[in-house]
């Protein structure tokens, strides 16, 4: 059993409003899962159920085998599964970057030498060494969001859940933050659950989960999910522009695979068609 996160028939409702309906889900250690769905499809609720901010009205959520409804395990669960939110301003606590990153280890009661080491490592992992003594409000949005990620990393979590972390950022900040997320997953083996509205970001994941009306509508690798454009649009989503272009080229009779989701894949495929023609 190497599922780090497991949902068993999880339902959640606010009053009579059913937000999630009998969700089964498992996420393996080291996996990169993207969660998509229109606003109100239950994505954020799903995220908050993972680390015990919300408890399921029915069913069970397990983090590394720990039941999230077990209050004695709460601190351990939150340490295992850290969470980053959309608005970077509203998750930074301290007036100096390093003090903010130190916040979680301070709460865990670690001794100052250990905190110092974790803070330095976390800040290095997000590439903010130059800003360690800066005031957060003077940083750009992308930098603030990386401070928030470092603040979670300092707990040394095995899984990080990110709830639309790039929604408020400009393209540059977005690509820097995505770079950090990918690196944490590939190099440190941290399990990533990324909730996003950007299809290009979801294309980087190992697997995509699409929620619709509180149910799992799709669950599979990006190549498989994105190749069905009509289905994506009916779920209130879209396909990455590369896939859109690829599907159009296929319609025009070019011999391409329909599971192309990254620009470099399409370029290579087109070049090899050209080679073959010669």
């Amino acid at each position: 059993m190497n599922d780090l996160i497991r949902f068993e028939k999880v339902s959640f409702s606010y009053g009579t409003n059913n937000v999630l309906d009998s969700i089964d889900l498992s996420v393996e250690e080291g996996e990169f899962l993207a969660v998509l769905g229109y606003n109100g499809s239950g994505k954020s609720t799903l995220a908050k159920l993972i680390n015990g901010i919300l408890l399921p009205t029915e069913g069970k959520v397990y983090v590394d085998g720990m039941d999230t409804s077990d209050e004695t395990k709460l601190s351990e669960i939150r340490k295992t599964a850290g969470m980053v939110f959309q608005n970077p301003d509203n998750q930074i606590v301290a007036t100096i970057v390093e003090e903010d990153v130190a916040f979680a280890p301070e709460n865990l009661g670690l001794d100052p030498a250990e905190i110092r080491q974790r803070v330095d490592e976390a800040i290095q992992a997000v590439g903010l060494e130059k800003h360690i003594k800066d005031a957060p409000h003077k940083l750009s949005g992308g930098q603030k969001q990386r401070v928030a990620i470092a603040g979670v990393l300092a707990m040394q979590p095995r899984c990080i859940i990110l709830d639309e972390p790039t929604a408020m950022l400009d393209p540059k900040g977005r690509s820097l933050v995505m770079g950090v997320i990918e690196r944490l997953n590939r190099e440190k083996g941290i399990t990533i659950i990324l909730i996003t509205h950007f299809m290009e970001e979801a294309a980087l994941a190992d697997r995509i989960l699409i929620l619709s009306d509180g149910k799992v509508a799709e669950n599979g690798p990006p190549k498989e999910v994105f190749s069905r454009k009509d289905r994506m649009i009916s779920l209130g989503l879209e396909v990455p522009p590369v896939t859109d272009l690829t599907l159009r080229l296929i319609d025009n009779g070019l011999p391409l695979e329909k599971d192309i989701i990254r620009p470099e894949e399409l370029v290579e495929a087109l070049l090899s068609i050209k080679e073959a023609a010669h």
Partner: protein
Amino acid sequence: MSTLRLDNVGFTYQKGMPDEKVAVSGVSLTFDEGDFIGIIGHTGSGKSTLIQMLNGLLRPTTGHVYIDGDDIWDDRSKLREKRFKVGLVLQYPEYQLFEETVRKDIAFGPRNLGLSEEEIQSRVEEAAHYLRIPEKLLDRSPFDISGGEKRRAAIAGVLAMRPEVLVLDEPTAGLDPRGRRDILDVIRNYHENEKKTVILVSHSMDDVARYAGKVLVMNAGGVFFYDRVDEVFKHALELRETGLNIPTVTDILLTLRERGMDVDTDIYTPSGAAETITGYFRGEESK
């Protein structure tokens, strides 16, 4: 006839202080009546400062802003009146909602214009119609509706003032794909019906390419390009070199060209790109 003309406009924050910062300098251009203009540029390229000068929220430290030939800062007593000709929707406009009902909130602007109650109500209806806000939503509290609905209510609040020029700063920020599409379609529909000038500030080249007729590319506080969309994308390579996010398909075409495929690169929509690539292979076949 409503044109917005900038003459050598510049803005410096903290002017004269040791930490002064030039945000915009030497911008001279005209936004013609009825155009749909997209403004793009990095954070810090001066686009937010520029649009705040268009309706007199900021006073240029150099140069002049003219609307219909009048310098908006000529006569301070008329500043408010001139400001209303340019409706500005700032980023995350839903944070400006404050009234008890959506209807009252949309009416806030028109009421400040001193219109009659009847006129106010008809403008609220009209704006709500454009923003596809259903009647039953108008009597709800603006704090009690979904994120996308809040955004549309806030935009309606500016639209109801019937500005000659509508300026929107990243109206789709933070929305889901369907929400983004909805807002942009609403804006396009408004532009086509009213034939009024629309200025859309966006980070997304894809959106600007798809919706705008002209593009203003800002870089380091100045104008980098200002031309028709197809003209600007003839400079796609230069845009990419300054680190601007060009449409994904344009990026792919540029790479193909670099790798020896002779395709057009001034194309910015998936359908256009599909056509040019298919055309290329057909041409190869017939050789």
